[in-house]
Each structure stands twice: as structure tokens, then as C-alpha cells.
């Protein structure tokens, strides 16, 4: 059984307008997505800005009011606040935020920040609590000095690690990491990514790793879902996505990743522009009449793509032939 199962999740934000300010329409931030996260894996969620990644992440951690659909954890639908409370859900599912500065309360000392979930879920004695905080700091590679300092006294990478310390404090099973490194410099990014991997190995945590940087996702994730317009357009293993992308949107995303190989940049640019052209031209084939992605169909046991079944099959065959 999967650690967590997301069934047909929808999050719509109402748009009010008209004379009586009624709800006349809605922003379909997340519009019916389903996927499962297995224990101990890192699940990547990729997509362009506004595609609904954060909303999905927040829904899973229980920060967002879900319009419809289920998120099943230990057999319970945790979209119900009552279920979340009963399960002490957030003890098991935690979150790391993109902006390390804003996610740490600037007026709280590090001790209080890291101890916050402990105080709510574990009720330790004062000394035990302090000890646990020190251990956590040690695990994320910070000195005990940090205990009584404020967040602003740390660098971006250190802050992000404090965020991680807080997230792992209660020994969670799943951590939602919403673009945890996109605000960081290259070297600091490396530091945090390494660190997240280590924690995962040591604690057996699963990640839902949200990012729009396909390079980072490739480095981190085993399974990847590509999101567009609130829906999933492609879903598969790292190999499926990076080596056998089927949906034009996935291809376009991949093509847009800047290539560090200077020698082939002209070629790379040409490919990218070709894919872009194809994306512009073939909208009608890849998206339904409303411009929304189709439902997912399976092309292999691990690989799903949001296309009409026959079209998906033919693409998959073509892909295999190229490989062969």
C-alpha cells in the first residue's frame, strides 16, 4: 500500500463578480489529479509557474481547503480536518517552504522554532525537549550556539536547514518540499539538496519534491509528475520522463533547461525552438477542446500520459522505435 494516495484532487478558488458579487467562476488551481507516494521515495512535481504545484502540496499537508477529491492516509481521508486531528496527521506529514526567511518566524529564537511541533505533538519535558532540539541541530549540521539566535542571523542555506530540522523534528513519514532550493545560490543549493538526501536515507522519509527546475528534480526524484493547468500531463519514473517524454508539454519543459555544454548550444537552441514550434502548432492534438489536458492513460506500468489512448500508444511506439 502506498504511503499516501491522492484521488481526483480538486482545489478551485471562487471568482466573484457581477452585481451581487456571487461566485460566477473559479480558478481551477488543481483540477482533478491523482497519484500515490510510496514510503521512502522522493516524488517530483514539476510544472511551470501557476500550474498548481504549491496548491497540491499545501492540500496534501492540510493547509488548503480542498474542493473535492480524497487524500487517503492510513486509510482515512485527511481532507477532513477532523481526521487530520485524530491522526495527528501533521506529526507524520510536514513541509519545507521555498522562502527560508519568511517560513521562520523572525521574532522567535531557533529553539522555539524547532521545538514548536514537538510542543504540540510530543509533550516532552523541558530538558528532553531541549536535548531533542540540540540533536536536531546537530543532525542538520548546526552548532548548539544557534539555539538562542534569531533566523535573520543565519545564511539562506543554514535557514533552510533549520526549516528541515523543524520538519523532521517529529519523525515524519512524508515531507512536502515546495521549491526548497529555488531561492538559493548554486553552492548553497547543493548543500541543502545533499542534506535532504542524507536525512531521507537516515530516517526513511518520503518527499513530495516540488520544483520547476528539472535539473534539480532529476537529481532528487525517482518518480516524477508533470503538471500543467492544474492537471497532470505526464507521470513516470525519472527515466520515463527524461528519456522517453511523450507529452509535448514535457518535451517543451525539458528543452527549456539551459544546457551547460557550451559546445552544443546552437544545436540545443535549434531543438528547443523546434519543440516550441511544435508546441504552438499542435495544441489541438495534445489538449482537449477547452485547452485542458486530457485524462491520463497508461503507456507502461510506470508511465502515464494525458493524451487520448490511441495517440498515446502511437507516440509510445514511435519513441520505442527511435530507441531501438
Amino acid at each position, binding site marked *: 500500500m502506498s504511503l499516501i494516495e491522492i484521488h481526483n484532487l480538486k482545489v478551485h478558488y471562487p471568482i466573484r463578480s457581477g452585481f451581487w458579487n456571487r461566485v460566477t467562476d473559479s480558478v481551477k488551481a488543481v483540477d482533478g489529479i491523482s497519484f500515490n507516494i510510496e514510503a521512502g521515495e522522493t516524488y517530483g512535481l514539476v510544472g511551470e509557474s501557476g500550474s498548481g504545484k504549491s496548491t497540491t502540496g*499545501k492540500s496534501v*499537508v*492540510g*493547509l488548503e481547503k480542498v474542493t473535492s477529491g480524497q487524500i487517503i492516509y492510513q486509510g482515512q481521508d485527511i481532507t477532513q480536518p477532523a481526521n487530520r486531528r485524530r491522526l*495527528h496527521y*501533521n*506529526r507524520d*506529514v*510536514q*513541509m519545507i*517552504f*521555498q*522562502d527560508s526567511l*519568511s*517560513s*521562520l*518566524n*523572525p*521574532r*522567535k*529564537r531557533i*529553539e522555539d522554532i524547532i521545538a*514548536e*511541533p514537538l510542543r*504540540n*505533538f*510530543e509533550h516532552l519535558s523541558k*530538558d528532553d525537549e*531541549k*536535548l*531533542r532540539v*540540540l*540533536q*536536531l541541530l*546537530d*543532525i542538520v549540521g548546526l*552548532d*548548539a*550556539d*544557534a*539555539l*538562542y*539566535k*534569531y*533566523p*535573520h*542571523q543565519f545564511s539562506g542555506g543554514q535557514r533552510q536547514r533549520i*526549516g528541515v530540522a*523543524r520538519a*523532521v523534528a517529529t*519523525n515524519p513519514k512524508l515531507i512536502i518540499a515546495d521549491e526548497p532550493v529555488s531561492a538559493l545560490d548554486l553552492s548553497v543549493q547543493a548543500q541543502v539538496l545533499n542534506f535532504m538526501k542524507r536525512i531521507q536515507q*537516515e*530516517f526513511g522519509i518520503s518527499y513530495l519534491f516540488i520544483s520547476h527546475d528539472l535539473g534539480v528534480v532529476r537529481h532528487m526524484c525517482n518518480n516524477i509528475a508533470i503538471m500543467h493547468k492544474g492537471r497532470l500531463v505526464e507521470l513516470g519514473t525519472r527515466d520515463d520522463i527524461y528519456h522517453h517524454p511523450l507529452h509535448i508539454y514535457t518535451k517543451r519543459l525539458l528543452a527549456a533547461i539551459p544546457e551547460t555544454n557550451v559546445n552544443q548550444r546552437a544545436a540545443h537552441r535549434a531543438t528547443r525552438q523546434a519543440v516550441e514550434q511544435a508546441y504552438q502548432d499542435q495544441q489541438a492534438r495534445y489538449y482537449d477542446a477547452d485547452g485542458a489536458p486530457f485524462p491520463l492513460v497508461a503507456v507502461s506500468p510506470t508511465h502515464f500520459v494525458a493524451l487520448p489512448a490511441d495517440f498515446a500508444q502511437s507516440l509510445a511506439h514511435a519513441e520505442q522505435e527511435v530507441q531501438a
Partner: protein
Amino acid sequence: MPNKIDQQSSISAADLTRLNQEAQSEATPSTARIIWNEFKADRPAMAALIIIVGFILFVMVAALFIDTPKMMETNIMNYFNPPFSAQDWLGADSAGRSIAQQLIVGSRNSIGIALGLTAISSTFGIAWGLISGYFNGYVDWGMQRVYDFMMMLPMLMIIIVLVTIIPHYNAITLTLIFSLFYWEGTSRLIRSRTLAEADKDYVAASITSGTNQWKIIFNQIMPNISSLIIVDTTLSFAENIGVETGLSFLGFGLPSQTPSLGTLIANANDPNNITQYWWTWLPAALEIIVLCLSISYIGQVLRRAADASQRQGMTN
């Protein structure tokens, strides 16, 4: 499975005290301390602070030694005594009552009203703003309607009507009446800042840490707008010292036997008093101006200090 963490870290209970001490020695001073240090460094601000606190204490204590009913007795012989005379070094008013004594008791009353009013209206306004800003949806909607309604009320008029209705009103009732209205400014300020704060990720982090909403509002968000609160409260205090003067001037302020800065300044209502008997109103007017200026100066310093304590992080 707490042991999991124990396994991963080499730190054990034995190290606790040592590490704690190490951390303590490195501890960053709290915001309050930073502000205090700032004051210590800024001499004029410190002076203003000492003067204000000293003055308030003096007035509070000195007023205890003045028998107010006796002081307010008509003394025909001292009628409009000029200042610097033997009995009344600040002169006497139309009923021969000592201006100096009235000034002390009046300051006590006015400052008392200001303190009470600031305490009530700020507490209420802060709570209102925090709650309204944090809970969007129906709670906020309802609270905003109440706020809009209160804003629509012509405050001065309603206060005057209320004052005429209430038969036995005194400084406390007056404070309460003012409190009905004076929370609005604070609440709006706090609400808009709370709206911004509530959007920040640390609030989301607290929610996922299982902290309950009230704790989030008052333990997490409130400290972050504390500098705003401190400054706003100081400035309202400065403003509130003069709050009953206008009403007293119109004749709806404190009862005539309760001296206040307002009743004293209202002496200027009679043009003859303006020059001829200037001592009946001018000292009180000057006192208000000086108090208000000093307190707002302190407010500015507080704002600077609070900002500095927040800014520190950026330059480090």
C-alpha cells in the same frame, strides 16, 4: 520513534548542560533589550523618556497629597490671583482656585484618562485587528461590517449625545465612552499588517506544526507586529492626553469639579482669559504640547529602534 533521532545524533543528555551554556553565551539579545540599548545610546531620547516617566510619576504622587474637593472650593479672596503670588505661584482662576494644584490633579486625571483609554482601545483594537486579519471569510466580513459601521458614526456627535444621556458620568465613564470609538484606527492598522503577516510561510509552518489558531495569532503573529504595536500605542497615548480637551471646550467634558487639562484649557473659551488671565489656560496648553511632543518623540525613537532590530538581520 524518538530513538531514531537519538541514533542519528552523537549528542546525548550528558551534553545538555554544557551545550546549553555554550548557546546561552552566544544568545542574541531580545528585541526589548535592543530597544533599551538603543535608548541608552540616544541621549535625548533617554532624557525625554526620563522626563516623561518622571513627570507622570510626580503628577500621580503629588496628586495624592492634594485634597481635590478642598482645592476646588471657591475662594473669593483669590479671585484671578496673578501668578507668582504668595499662595498660588501659577495664579488662580475665576473662582480663586490654585492653578498649580489644578494642573497637577488635572494632569493626573487627563493622563489617567489617556492611560486608561490607550490601554482599553489599544488592547481591543489590536485583538480586533489580529482576529479580523487572521480569519478571512465570514469572521472578517462580519468584523469589517461592524468596523465600517463604527467608522460611519459621527464620533464627536455621538459622544456628545452619550455624555448628555449618562447622568453620573465621571472620568471612568468618559474613558469608556471614548474607548467605544478609539480602537478603530489601531484595528485597521493592525488588520492590514496581520493580513500581510498571515500570508507568510511561518504561519503555514505553525499550522503544520499543529499549533492552534489562537496561539498562532497571539504568540506567532503578534510578536511580529510588536514594533508597530509599540509605536502605535505610544502615539495614541500622546494623542489621547488631549482627547478630552475638545469635549471640555464644548462643555461636554469632565464635570466642573474634576479638574483636567481640558477644563483648564477651556478657560481660553473666554477671550478675556486669553491675555488678561493667561495663566488660567496657557500652562495647561503648553503642558499638553510638551507632553505630546515628547511622547511622540519617544515613539519615533522606538520606531527607529524597532526597525533597527529587524534590519539587523539584513546587514549581517
